[in-house]
């Protein structure tokens, strides 16, 4: 198992948000975490990437308990991409991406040429060539998100956690970012809102509701009308996308 979550519980103001969640992710898998707003997705992920400390339970990467790893060692094992948050201080794209190299750099004696190459390669990978000296705050939403993807990539960790990576992005950018992530040889665990995006990219789908994991399976197993209705309360019709061969979810709201 690349990532193993064992019996995580977490509460905020004595309200249980994550209630005994366990799951395992094998190396190389692209796993999507789905559930209604407020079901605890983001809280679960924050427990995994150490922004929150679980009340009980533990997280293991390659069998190592992350709570016992130093901040730098954790950063070598797992990178994280979050929603773009409001930054008050501006910096150029190149510097922003370079911050992802933090855990690899020493105070002195850094191989500057190598560091530069890694950063430039990542900027190229996300299609932001020529943007190196642009100010981050002047970028569009999609460009900002891609910058953050590049920052996560230069961390060179085999596991990447995505906390609502494509929220607020229009559909073109959503697919673009998922494509970039899919072509990396990484183990990915991502919360996703759009069911069709999830169906298209994920090897495994995890359903979460009210702090519990309720079901896990392949997109074909999970995207069936009963399960989707149970999770989101919306009727659907499932087709097969003739191009991708993946399930295509058509919503049938009561009008």
């Amino acid at each position, binding site marked *: 198992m690349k990532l193993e979550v064992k019996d995580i519980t977490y509460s905020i103001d004595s309200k249980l948000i994550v209630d005994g969640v366990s799951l395992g992710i094998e190396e190389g898998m692209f796993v999507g975490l789905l559930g209604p707003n407020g079901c605890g997705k983001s809280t679960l992920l924050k427990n995994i990437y150490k922004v929150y400390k679980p009340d009980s339970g533990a997280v293991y990467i390659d069998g190592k308990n992350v709570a016992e790893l130093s901040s730098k060692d954790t*950063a070598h094992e797992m990178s994280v991409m*979050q929603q773009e948050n409001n930054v008050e*201080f501006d*910096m*150029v794209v190149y*510097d922003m991406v370079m911050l*992802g190299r*933090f855990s690899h750099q020493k105070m002195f004696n850094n191989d500057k040429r190598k560091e530069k190459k890694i950063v430039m390669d990542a900027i190229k990978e996300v299609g932001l060539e020529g943007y190196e000296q*642009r100010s981050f705050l002047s970028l569009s939403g999609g460009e900002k998100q891609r910058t953050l993807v590049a920052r996560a990539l230069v961390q060179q960790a085999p596991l990447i956690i995505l906390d609502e990576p494509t929220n607020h992005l229009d559909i073109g950018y959503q697919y673009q970012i998922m494509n970039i992530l899919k072509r990396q040889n990484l183990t990915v665990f991502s919360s996703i809102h759009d069911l069709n995006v999830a169906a298209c990219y994920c090897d495994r789908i995890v359903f979460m509701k009210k702090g519990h994991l309720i079901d896990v399976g392949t997109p074909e197993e999970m995207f069936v009308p009963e399960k989707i209705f149970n999770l989101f309360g919306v009727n659907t019709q499932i087709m097969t996308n003739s191009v991708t061969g993946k399930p295509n979810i058509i919503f049938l709201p009561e009008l």
Partner: protein
Amino acid sequence: MSNMKISFFPLQKRSHYLIFCAIMVGVMLLSFVMATRLGSVELKFDVIKRVLANKITGRTVYPSTWEESTESILWSIRVPRILTAFIVGAGLTLCGILMQALTKNPLADPYVLGISQGASAGAVSVIMYGYLSFLGGYGTMVGAFLGAVISIILALRIATIRNKVTATQLVLAGIAVSAFFGAITNFMIYHTKTGSDKVKTATYWMMGSLNGASWDKLKYASIAFVICLLMILALTRNLDVLLLGDDVAVTVGVDTDKLKLIIIAVATLLTGVIVSVSGTIGFVGLTIPHITRSIVGTKHSRLIPASVLVGGTFLVVADIISRVIVAPEELPIGVVSAFFGAPFFLYLIRRSHGKFGG
């Protein structure tokens, strides 16, 4: 429309940055020269040069043709005062940068957060009641440091809601904390009542003044400043990452708990030391980092050396103004810095409203 957003500022090239720093060193030296010359007694450059040459080399390079009083004005009053002004300005700037990285908010600075007032209450209490007298000359500094620690904890507790410090919360917390510690200081002054020297020194603490500068105090302040500066220069990359938010800092590998503890320790220590030599001088830590940031960018490895230069120089110039503008009287330097700083503070509040609004 965002396609043409490559502008000259902030300076990108290393050579441009170094040129800027060189220019600032020039301005700094110029301000030193002007500051030795101007004041209630104007001195001639020629005399200044000779006295300094004798004093610095410790020998009689030039035979003494000037009055004793000239020498003592220059060497015992002006020179330590100028250097103190520089250290105070540089130190306040550094504190401002640290508070801003800690709160991720460009409005943060020791004065706005009420930490200067806390330090000054601590210093005044030591002077009034003398309870740290066993520490000798360090008593006031320790008192100021303790005041700073208490006020920073209070200010951050009030300003932080769900791990975020918004501009509004920050300003409100600062008002509350500085009002509280201002009241304590006033109470102590009234309580002691007599028109004694103690009350005079206490009032000067609240206004900010470099009147009491001496070689002795300068020595303590510069040692503390240099130690703090070196510690922080070793952490510049940590500070860069911290600006992106605690969550992000954790995920790229920063030990945020440890880092914040170091920042708070350094910022309070430095604020305590500075306030104990100069009283509360406002807005330096707010305006200088902001202006310098727009010129050299956000990266702390560049920002800190440049803004320390700018901040030190700014206060030397402000001190000249405070001595010259109502000569032969002297304006407290806090008044001068507030004249520049307060409008700037308003501008920053307006700007941040656009961002936090909605």
